[in-house]
């Protein structure tokens, strides 16, 4: 609906359609809440609250969340605390005289110029491994922006699964003989969809990034 018709409606003293809708929805919601109790409703809830163990606040606090993403063949997890955004891969402008190391260039992320790095290089992941195998890896490519208070940084990943909530108690230690890439940044292993995903230590990772782009 355009602004002009809005104004016309106001001038005519009519109730705006959207406001009328909202009132109607409120009335419907109220009618739903005022309907009689279904049979067994009260007994069922009584059983529910009788049986359940009190939720320990400590246990609740140990729930954590991480974003799971893939680089090459490697699935990795990183705490949601450092995630700023996930977006379509931008055009990366390479920087003169910075063609070695982890810096790939700078990218325009909604008007802000961010340094774009190659996490694969930093972690020592062979990022072409999966690309050769199939085409699906190309379709889900995303740019991820992470950072702390003192700055943000972007990198591209081949796929972002999404946010995974887990119990801190369910994390397992990194195997001593791990041949996996990026193990020096991996703080723990996270079981996810039948595989073990390395949970990256966000502080160590961001420190390493800072050192490498300085």
């Amino acid at each position, binding site marked *: 609906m355009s602004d002009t018709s809005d104004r016309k409606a106001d001038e005519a003293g009519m109730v705006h359609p959207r406001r009328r809708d909202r009132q109607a929805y409120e009335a419907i919601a*109220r009618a*739903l*809440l*005022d*309907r*009689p*109790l279904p049979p067994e*409703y*009260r*007994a069922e*809830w*009584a059983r*529910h*609250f*009788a049986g*359940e*163990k*009190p939720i320990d606040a400590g246990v609740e606090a140990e729930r954590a969340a991480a974003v799971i993403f893939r680089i090459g063949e490697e699935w990795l997890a990183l705490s949601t605390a450092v995630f700023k955004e996930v977006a379509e891969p931008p055009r990366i402008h390479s920087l003169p005289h910075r063609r070695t190391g982890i810096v790939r260039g700078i990218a325009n992320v909604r008007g802000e110029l961010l340094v774009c790095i190659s996490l694969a290089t930093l972690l020592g992941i062979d990022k072409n491994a999966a690309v050769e195998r199939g085409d699906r890896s190309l379709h889900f490519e995303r740019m991820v922006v992470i950072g702390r208070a003192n700055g943000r940084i972007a990198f591209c990943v081949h796929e972002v699964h999404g946010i995974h909530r887990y119990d801190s108690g369910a994390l397992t230690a990194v195997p001593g003989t791990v041949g996996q890439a990026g193990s020096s940044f991996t703080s723990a292993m996270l079981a996810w969809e039948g595989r073990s995903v390395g949970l990256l230590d966000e502080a160590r990772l961001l420190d390493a990034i800072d050192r490498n782009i300085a």
Partner: protein
Amino acid sequence: MLFLMFRLGADRYVLDVEQVEEVLPFLEPTLLPGAPHGVAGAINYRGQAVPLLDLSVLALGRPSAAVISTRVILIRYPVEGGETRRLGLVAERVIETVSRDPDDFVPSGVDAGMPPYLGPVASDAEGVIQLVRAEALLPVQLREILFRKLQAGS
């Protein structure tokens, strides 16, 4: 400050959310034979017996309507020594919270003859909202009976 609103009949009342632990569905209580007027029974809340008070019975003399919007407000009821005990309150239309300045509540001017649990009032476009003082909901002797009986039973 945030308040939990409920209705007794057509009138609106609020409780300070600080006193509220949880809002539960209108679950079935265990009847307490010989319980005083207004006591709907006791509920088993996660293994603990909690007395249930029907505010509609106390204020209007009729039980709360058996509809979805009738809910149990679980409050922390202050007892001696700074401790609190859980107390369930059945009330109607427990469907919204309101944010009001505590200074909005002024004495209603008709304190004499009013039940002790009714506190100051605030007004808005729809009329008057009455603040309920949870700590004054139970007369001393009723509180003694109730909590002692539940303790002996559990």
